[in-house]
């Protein structure tokens, strides 16, 4: 048997931390994807100059470390006089962060559909919306989905940083346990790592399988 001071209570504490990790991931991914589709379609279809400011803004979210983004938002939002819990700040920052990457994925997906195909669709009498829904969406999805799954996993792992601003997610909860059980940091960290792995690995396999299947069908 492994000799440890870790109690069932502490395991439950870690599981709760994992719950926060999943909740923040889910909120960030849902909100970030919706925003990302909006931004990405705009970037792909509107004339280049008109979305330049948007492109610049999204680029910032991809070029500044997430830790810095979190610290900045956490100090700036209260300066504006808005009361926000660290949880809300985390969700907001991660949603915008996700949208910045998602916009690039969507833009790449839309641009991967040959313009001639879309012109053909429009000349057959399809509206812009029908073209998007019936032609672009199914074709772009194959390009986008593997990257999007990768993004989801990336964001899940990046939630580990929200511990810095005081959200007790999975990694932070393991650090709190280490405060009490300083003799076994490696063991406790490994449990936390295992939980991350168990969440991430199946999804990443699924993504790889999808990619493989679509490539084989091409």
């Amino acid at each position, binding site marked *: 048997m492994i000799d440890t001071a870790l109690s069932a209570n502490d395991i439950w504490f870690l599981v709760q931390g994992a719950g926060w990790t999943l909740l923040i991931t889910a909120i960030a991914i849902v909100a970030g994807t919706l925003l990302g589709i909006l931004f990405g379609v705009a970037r792909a279809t509107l004339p280049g100059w008109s979305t330049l400011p948007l492109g610049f803004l999204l680029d910032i979210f991809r070029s500044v470390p997430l*830790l*810095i983004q979190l610290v900045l938002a956490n100090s700036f939002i209260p300066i504006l006089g808005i009361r926000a819990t660290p949880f809300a700040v985390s969700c907001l920052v991660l949603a915008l962060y996700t949208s910045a990457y998602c916009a690039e994925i969507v833009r790449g997906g839309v641009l991967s559909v040959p313009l001639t195909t879309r012109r053909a669709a429009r000349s057959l009498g399809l509206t812009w919306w029908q073209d998007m829904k019936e032609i672009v969406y199914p074709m772009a999805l194959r390009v986008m989905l593997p990257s999007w799954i990768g993004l989801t996993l990336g964001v899940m792992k990046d939630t580990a940083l929200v511990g810095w601003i005081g959200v007790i997610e999975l990694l932070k909860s393991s650090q709190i346990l280490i405060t009490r059980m300083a003799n076994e940091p490696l063991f406790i960290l490994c449990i936390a790592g295992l939980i991350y792995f168990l969440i*991430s690995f199946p999804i990443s396999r699924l993504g790889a399988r999808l990619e493989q299947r679509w490539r084989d069908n091409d």
Partner: protein
Amino acid sequence: MGVFNYTFHWRPAFQALPAMLEGALVTIQLAVLSMLFGIAIGVVLSLMRGSKNRLLSGFAVTWVEIARNTPALFQIYIAYFGLGQIGIRLDSFIALLIGITFNNAGYLAETFRGGMRAVPPTQTRAARSLGLSAVDAYRLIVLPQMFRVVFHPMTNQMVWAILMTSLGVVVGLNTDLTGVTQELNVKTFRTFEYFAIAAVMYYLIAKFVTLGARAIAWRLFRY
């Protein structure tokens, strides 16, 4: 209430610019080193993964999957406090470098594997039948094409490496850009001002890398 409750102190913040620029150099140094080691280990891992030896491929798969399926912060924390428990005491800088290199190598190994697949084996056979030696066929035919495929993901990984260096502060590093910024923050409590300047610096470093890579790609890859 509101905005007027907080007065920005930009003057002392700008005075810290030289110290922060020095931190930025350490950040760049860390990112570059972690990429060089990451590329070397990544190539080895991708070759090991393709090997028939179960032990070698198993080792590579384990490395790649742990690197890709756990947070970078976790990997860095393990490199410092996890290894510390079993008596391997690393300096903060080294622990961070090892953490980021571990992560880079894992991702780059997958990139290289994809790159190798992108060059069909028929090409090697064609090259060999034209009289090229195995080494020449690899050097002249496979590598240049592979490089073209992996160049863009490598650039992305370099930007990631820069972003990951910001995590050194959790293992006590106080010489890189985030470390210096946090030191200033805890001495003056002006979080927003200092971190805003740091954000601009990170942005510029990342832009420099992506634009530089674009220039190199334009120079190398045009037909």
